[in-house]
């Protein structure tokens, strides 16, 4: 087995997690790099979760939520959008590669898009190689 990147995803249960489920019911194959953590809303995702993932050895982190305007809770993803716009830039400022963190909007109907995002991100992470920054010693 070739070592594949470790991608931790935070997915809102209404849209992106359901989108990932749809990719499943549609049998769309994508890399097993990703492990999703179900959260009620992208607005629930505390940047501390992202940092913890990098500390524990994630090579990439994805935060996925409903498209703006479609949030089940009306506004959660709009807070997330602001929050992670800052966090992403800050992580880069600390020296992390931009490809290692992504915020994506994936609806419950976008199984295909979910698979695509995972494929894309996994390819990026493979190209970058394992992450050592912010990461504790194994």
């Amino acid at each position, binding site marked *: *087995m070739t070592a*594949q990147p*470790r991608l*931790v995803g*935070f997915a809102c*249960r*209404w849209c992106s*997690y*359901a989108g*990932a*489920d749809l*990719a*499943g*019911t549609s*049998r*769309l*194959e*994508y*890399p*097993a790099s990703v*492990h*999703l*953590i*179900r*959260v*009620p*809303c992208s*607005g*629930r*995702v*505390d940047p*501390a*979760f992202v940092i*913890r*993932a990098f500390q*524990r*050895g*994630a090579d990439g982190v994805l935060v996925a939520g*409903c*498209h703006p*305007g*479609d*949030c*089940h*809770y*009306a*506004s*959660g993803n709009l*807070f997330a959008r602001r*929050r992670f716009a800052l966090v992403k830039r800050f992580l880069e400022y600390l020296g992390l590669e931009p490809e290692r963190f992504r915020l994506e909007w994936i*609806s*419950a*109907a976008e199984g295909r898009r979910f*698979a695509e995002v995972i494929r894309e991100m996994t390819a990026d992470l493979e190209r970058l190689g394992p992450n050592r920054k912010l990461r504790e010693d194994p």
Partner: protein
Amino acid sequence: MPRIGAFICHCGLNIAATVDVERVAARARAIPGVVHAETYKYFCSQPGQEKIAEAIRSSRLDGVVVAACSPSMHEATFREAAALAGLNPYLVQIANIREQCSWVHSDRETATVKAAALVAAMVAKVRRDQPLEPIRLPVNPRALVIGGGVAGMQAAWDIAEAGHAVVVVEREPNLGGRMAQLSETFPTLDCASCILTPRTAEVARHPRIELLTWSEVREVSGYVGNFSVKIARRPAFVDWDRCIGCMLCQDKCPAPAPIAFEHGMGMGKAIGVSFPQAVPNRPVIRREYCRRFQGRKCQVCAKVCPVGAVDFEQAESCREEKVGAIVVATGFDVMPAAHFGEYGYGEYPDVIDSLAFERLNSSSGPTGGVIRRPSDGRIPREVVFIQCAGSRDPDRGKPYCSKICCMYTAKHAFLYRQKVPDGQAYVFYMDIRAGGKGYEEFVQRTVEQAGAMYLRGRVARVYPEDGRLLVEGVDTLAGTKVEVAADLVVLATAVLPREGARDLARTLKIAADEHGFYSEAHPKLRPVETMTRGIFLAGAAQAPRDIAETVAQASAAAAKALGLLTRGELAADPLVAEVDEARCSGCLVCRHVCPYQAIEPRELAARKVASVNPGLCQGCGACAAICRSGAMGLHGFSDKQVLAEVGAICL
């Protein structure tokens, strides 16, 4: 020491074919705190649930992880099973190793490793779960129905008949919606108003139904069982309580007005009703067409009114209704002309859409039911119907099928031939979708009895020539170019959600899909519920559908609403936010991000802390994420749980 049980489901071969479930169970057993791990073919089955219950009892489990399909499938099933066995249902977590593992990965080794990690994450999570009790909420037994079309009326009628008060809010001055505009209905060719009018009258006089027409929902607050709805009524400039419905005003009004009801085919008056059978039979003044409101001296209506009901000073009024459930039945619009340049829609008067054709067909319509083309009033000898005008057309942003067009086009072609026996109908179509009782037979009748010529293919363009319209298209079956000279072109334009549907979604805090159709909670199993508890969907507001389906769904929504309204009290998911008051600094930043106004300050021993109303809280967690000190927790998704999941995944 925790006592966790892990149950790895084969799901037949759905999981077991790709994931080595025995290895996953063995890996689970190695996790500290896991005292029981087993696999089974179908844990969701009765014997499967019994196995879980048995393990809960015999191994004295204080946490259960079921590795199976998505939690959206069977989380509730397994929680119930655990509860029956004496374990608090909130001490159950689902590891999604089917939709997010076995179905999307093919390599057995990687899928097995990933499944084990997903199980470990849920073990880590369930260890940090607390037993929770459902939140008990009182239920207001009244219902609100938004939309007074056939869907709204059906839902309102069913709820009222079951003994509950219903408020119906309709944006137009009268009930009826789209169905009232139709001439006949497919496939039986019943006269639409003949079947709708009695229903409208029944609804209007029902003692438990209150009609609020010419009104809109402005604000919705509260939560399931306890909604508070602000409804604004636009000024009608007529005191409806005084008005006796004689319609003298309409007769005498000198100002013509294009009313929406006629869909561009005919004119009404600046004061009046949309159609003669309108319920309530009360006029409104459309100020944009009224001479007086346009600054002229006219006061004809006020002068002729025998009861002095005209009131030019009337202002918008607002009222608040408390209800326990809401049915959303706002219906549909059709794609506007601007989208069809190549068909000359909006440019050539004889290119019309199907709704306009309905009006031409209607015996109460502008032509008295005689089909005359708009430009010169001639009876068209050749009519081209173009299906899928905008539908199934990703370029125009509408990849979906509008569903009703095949059938109403067949109906139009049929009715046209009945009324113009020597006329010829051409139908350009992509596919004929006639799934429904008697539908396919009806299409065949249209072809065979009405002699409609069905041409499979797209129309490239429509342009005028010698007072007629030349329709250029391709017959993809014959592989030839087709050119038809027509007197009238009828577009089966795409079905869209009602204008303003998205705004209403925001007001109601329900989700809408990319096209603006309201999203159901689950496409198969919860098709009339929304993700917001207590709000239900009926009719074409959710997706294009025909009358029979609409009525069936409206009754289903009513049944769902009644299931709630008859309860008196209901249990809500306790996965809501809670403040650790000892840690809270009272900065109340959480209040800014709460979409439900569920957070209020509370005085606590000379200091201020945040306090969550668990009835209002929907558990989105925005507050928990923005709270710096970690004082705001979210049951089921606490910081510590998510961090533990991260840790377990990254091992």
